[in-house]
């Protein structure tokens, strides 16, 4: 059974990079173009892990985490934040909202897979 990843990013380039890296590593890849769509898709996709960008239209990454962790959805699924910023405040804020970990852009495939492995235990 493949590990299902829901990636939420408004950049087509990043989505393509993620898709390439994840599919190569044997993950099942789903994606959404902004936070709103990501949250809406969540129930249907039922991912094992969510990767979300921070700066996005409609609903940003913090909003995604808050909604997924919130009462309505109450998700316990690991959520990795994909961000260009590595500032400690940002990590703290993401973690405060309930993020599991973070991946810094630009990411290399190995780090990405390593991070996913640590939060999902995926063998992939």
């Amino acid at each position, binding site marked *: 059974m493949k590990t299902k990843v829901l990636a939420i990013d*408004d*950049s*087509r*380039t*990043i989505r*393509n*990079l993620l898709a*390439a890296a994840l599919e190569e590593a044997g993950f099942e890849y*789903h*994606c*959404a*173009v902004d936070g709103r*769509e990501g949250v*809406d*898709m969540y*129930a*249907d*996709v*039922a*991912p*094992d892990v969510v990767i979300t960008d921070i*700066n*996005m*239209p409609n609903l940003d990454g913090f909003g995604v985490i808050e909604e997924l*962790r919130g009462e309505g*959805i109450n*998700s*316990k*699924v*690991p*959520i990795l934040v994909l961000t*260009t*910023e*590595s*500032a400690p405040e940002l990590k703290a804020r993401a*973690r405060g909202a*309930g*993020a*599991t*970990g*973070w*991946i*810094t*852009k*630009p*990411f*290399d495939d*190995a*780090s990405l897979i*390593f*991070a996913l*492995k*640590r*939060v*999902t*235990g995926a063998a992939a």
Partner: protein
Amino acid sequence: MAGSIQDTFFEECEELLEAMDEGLTAIEGGDHDPEVVNAVFRAVHSIKGGAGAFGLDELVAFAHKFETVFDEVRANRLGLDTKLIQLLLRSSDHLSDLVSTARDGGSTDEAHHDVLIAALEEYIDEDEEEVVFQPMGLGGAFEMSPIEVEKERVYSIRFHPLKDMYGTGNEPYFLFQTLADLGTLEVTLDESELPGFDALDTDESYLIWALTLTTTEPKSAIESVFEFVEGLCELSIESDMDEEDEANALAALEAAFGAAPEEGGDQVAAPFEPPVSAPEPEAVAAPVAAKAAAPKAEAAKSEQRGPNPTLRVDLERVDRLINAVGELIINHSMLAQQIANLDVADLRDVETELEGFKNLARDIQEGVMSIRAQPVKPLFQRMARIVREASAATGKTAKLITEGENTEVDKTVIERLSDPLTHILRNAVDHGVEKPDDREAAGKSRSGEIRLSASHRSGSVCIEIKDDGAGVNRPRVKQIAIDKGLIPENADLTDSEIDNLLFLPGFSTAKEISNLSGRGVGMDVVKNAVTALGGRINIASTPGKGSVFTIILPLTLAVMDGMVVSVADQTMVVPITSIVETMRGSDDMVNNLGADGTLLSIRGNFVPVCDVGGALGLSKADQDQPPGVYLLVETETGQRSALAVDDIHDQRQVVIKSLDGVCGNIPGVAAATILGDGKIAMILDPESILAASPSAAAFDTERRISNAIAS
């Protein structure tokens, strides 16, 4: 694979740059809506993110500065004043240059780059953290440790998650699994903290694990496994050879640098309690994934649920399709002609079907053409930049206002419009718009206004560039033309004729070589470019009020409406756009002028006649027969002439086949087409035929002389 993703990145950049320009233009126009500011921020941010992935360092560095300033604006720490807006606009221009450089190679203007960086830095706090754009060392296990540690060692790890950790979706079991990949792992649960059942607080975290890992990996690899839970747990990692390690490390560093650097002593000496032996740990909070039924089709559908689902197609494929449709239409007319030639009594059914075929072919053609149709918006947005740059270079202020941005035009037409528009706009700023002080003196606003508009006008596109400057300085233009020997000294020209002198080759009104003018490129180049597109350009000017350039272009370069005529037994096509009217002439309308010139009298006016056959060097079958049919055409200068042809057959849409690659540029012939009978017909270029016609030239001289006498 990486290459194609990089292509996607550059495509995406185009869209992002467009969104950025759009947002900045709105901001410049006074719209400081946070969402607009956010959108621009995101665009720059995404460009930076993508550029980082492909190691485009210069682009990343600049985008970062730009983004940082924008972030200040976003956070309301910086007010958007005119100076900042101008800087942001110039930065966006530069960013777009950097993207082009990254894509196409070449180099950017470094001085300009540094100036902008310095200007942006003025808005950034000194202590702003420099973001080092290196892939983070997330994967410690995958990175080369500076000191190769191959010796196997035993680590004792004590891991006590705090209750907050469970709220972040981190799962100890997976961490242990990852550790187990590094070597041989023994896990022991320490449940000594666990209170009695009645005192149990289900929200509290009581479990502690003691792990023993035997591995050759360095300590950093183990630390990186726990990266995400840092601060969310009590963690200690100790090795049986820590001290030896440190000594090794020091020795290695000393060997490398010749001195003992400071050592960051991060040895956490937490007391290590003897673990209570326990079986494999139970997963404390196994991730609860709501496994709702997920129909795959729906998931796939939502992938396309963007704002405007579009399909990216290689232009070449569309070109092939357009070509094939062109052939289809030609094929239809051939079929129609062959059926018409059949000697069969009742063809009504076939003809009805054929009519249906024709309609379908037309529909397909229109559909295919619309694939290539694109709004002129991106082009117009680029033009805003040209005006900004030109204004900066000339010390004037001018603002570009665009209208009809959503007017759709064939992609190739848009691409080839860029140069002429750039030139006209530069001219508008350089020669049209006055200096701020002069404008004020003339009772105008200090900032000039240039209006760029596009609209559809009966099957053509009309692009208008209108400035509110001083208009054409006619006495000066005329004097320059006389000085350069372009017109005779005593020439008497109408206002419109003087304005159109600007299009003469070798004409330039620039007194001195400025940054913009004096590049040896005149308006004649603009005119040639427009003509090459099958279009026309005209200028109208009102002294003191400004000038208007009007460019009329065909919607597409692939088909056109033409009038099928015969000239000296040859079938030819004249573009409908240049024909004003057609008429059958009688002898009393024709007057001779000079040795071989002819004038046609139409409603009290004389227009020069150009015998098309003669101009093309074709001898007529019957020399004595005077040409019976005249096509009244209007040239770009608004001057009318009559083309004499033998007969008019039909008016129809023809598929244009370029001759450029086959036989080069032929005066008088614009292109060719294939007719229904399979024969090739030349598409005429009235402008160049007239230029070669003796009548028109003679008439011109004649009229000037008579004008001179009359005045």
